[in-house]
């Protein structure tokens, strides 16, 4: 490495470290406040290190609202929606990629066309649909409507088409049914794409705010984001408790992310759009 290049790298590191500090600052500030005493929160200038670690903020925050239940709800909803999306869209994608049927291209175009409609347009009629079906304030409402994704179908179809069709032909020769080909040839051969899509979907469902906000009412049905939002409404100046709740809401995903960084990045970049 030349002298000049070395110097350049040192400047780059300084630049990147300053950037990193800005990215980390909100996390550190959140953590620091979450451990402060109530009086200590309102000091000026702000202290970065709490005088002593007040873990009781966490028990206070967690007992002020049924956060355990919020967690359970978020988990149930995110897992179920993700599995349901993967199942329905991979079955449909298989039909689009591998089976011959009347209206295939037209139907696929209809699927693609709906990708242009923003979720906002579907929000209100879906809300009315959910009420009409008697699903308001229930798991059904949280799980089913978000589980049908033209985008996931499109992504998987593209991927399935990359799998050599000779594999299907050989299996068919041996008498395998289409269902078996889907389950034993196509799905296992799409591992990375399905894993990336699963992470993308899980994260999206886990963090989703608007839809659960609209279709839930009772505290027992709230997911973490919705619960946190109502917590903020009630404890708006109890910053140490709010920050403790925010830490609890973020922590599990951040821990998983630390260990599976590559997969998270893959999940979000491969599936690209970052939204519906």
């Amino acid at each position, binding site marked *: 490495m030349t002298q000049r290049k070395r110097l350049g790298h040192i400047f*780059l590191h300084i630049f*990147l470290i300053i950037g990193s500090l800005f*990215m*980390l*600052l909100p*996390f550190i*500030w*959140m953590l620091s*406040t979450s451990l402060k005493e109530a009086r200590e929160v309102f*000091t*000026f200038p*702000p202290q970065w290190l709490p005088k002593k670690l007040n873990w009781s903020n966490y028990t206070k925050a967690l007992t002020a609202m049924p956060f355990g239940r919020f967690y359970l709800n978020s988990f149930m909803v995110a897992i179920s929606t993700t599995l349901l999306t993967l*199942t*329905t869209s991979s*079955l449909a994608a298989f039909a689009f990629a*591998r089976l*011959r*049927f009347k209206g*295939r291209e037209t139907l696929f175009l209809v699927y693609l066309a709906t990708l242009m*409609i*923003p979720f906002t*347009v*579907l*929000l*209100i*009629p*879906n809300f009315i*649909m959910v009420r009409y079906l008697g699903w308001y304030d229930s798991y059904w409402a949280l799980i*089913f409507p978000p*589980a*049908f994704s*033209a985008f996931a179908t499109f*992504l998987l179809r593209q*991927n399935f*088409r990359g*799998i050599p*069709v000779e594999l*299907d032909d050989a299996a068919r020769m041996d008498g395998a049914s*289409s269902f078996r080909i*889907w389950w034993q040839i196509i799905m296992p051969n799409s591992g990375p*794409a399905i894993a990336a899509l699963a992470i993308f979907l899980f*994260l999206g469902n886990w*963090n989703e*705010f*608007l839809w659960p906000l*609209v279709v839930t009412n009772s505290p027992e049905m709230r997911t973490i*984001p919705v619960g*946190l*939002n109502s917590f903020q409404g009630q404890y708006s100046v109890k*910053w140490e408790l*709010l*920050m403790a709740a*925010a830490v609890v809401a*973020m922590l599990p*995903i*951040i821990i998983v992310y630390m260990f599976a960084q590559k997969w998270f990045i893959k999940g979000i970049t491969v*599936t*690209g759009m*970052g*939204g519906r």
Partner: protein
Amino acid sequence: MSAASSKSSGTPSNKGFRFGKWRPGQQNEAYLFLLPSLIGFAFFVLIPIIGAFALSFFDWNLISPAKFVGVDNYKQLLFQDAVFRKVLGNTFYYAVTIVPLQLILGLVMAVALNQGIRGLELYRLIYFMPVITNIVAVAIVFQWLLNRDFGVANAWVWQLADATGWHIAPPDWLNSSFWAKPAVIILTLWKNIGFTMVIYLAALQGVPESLYDAAKVDGATGSQRFRFVTIPMVSATTFFLVVIQMIGAFQLFAEPFVMTRGGPAQASLTIVMYIYQNAFEFGRMGKATALAWILFAIIFIFTLIQTRLQRRWVHYETGD
């Protein structure tokens, strides 16, 4: 290099069009495979689209019977509603600031990370972390960061004022009609920069080193190489990012909803928040739906303009 296409480009995808022996049973079988998806699709996508279209011509609060009002909802929004004009202005304000800032900062970060430096993985871990966090939680954290009296941001402004002797007073971010929008923008940028950076990083890694070498031989300086090699080579990615981030910015909701509740006095209110308010606070389902269609039209037009304009500035690899 958009994500979806890069996935399939490595394999001969047109092979999928070759079919095995034609079997008459395949027709019905295909519909069986499609059925679960189609049912959900009909109930939660197709019927709602049609329903939304119809609903936008009614006045309905979900309780009393719906009343047909023709195009009144649209007319009222477009020509009479002062709040609509306000939220439209706010939403454009967000879009024209967030999209370019996000692209510039994301590209700068990506270029910095792409110089073969050590610690790439660690930096990427840190910059990408906000992307996976929950928006409600981070919006509350930013409320606290930007708190007028005890927030970190203002403490720094005071310290700067003390150190320099300037007469500057820090803003009351969340309660000032001027600063509420920048507050939302700061949060949005912090949250999404990592995404832009990672996408750009992938694009930069696809730029052949030989192009830079050739430019060096021709005597191009560092900034010329950036201007004439890097920028054109990632322009397809830039186009992709512009489109999806514009769509995202036009639909901004959770950030202002949690951080400022749209205030003060609608200063940070967005179109989607106004849709939410009309539907779920004022009980105006028809008006809210009409507004959603107007938003769709705006997004559609802007995406169309972008696709038209791309021919002038997006450089695609030929002979691939």
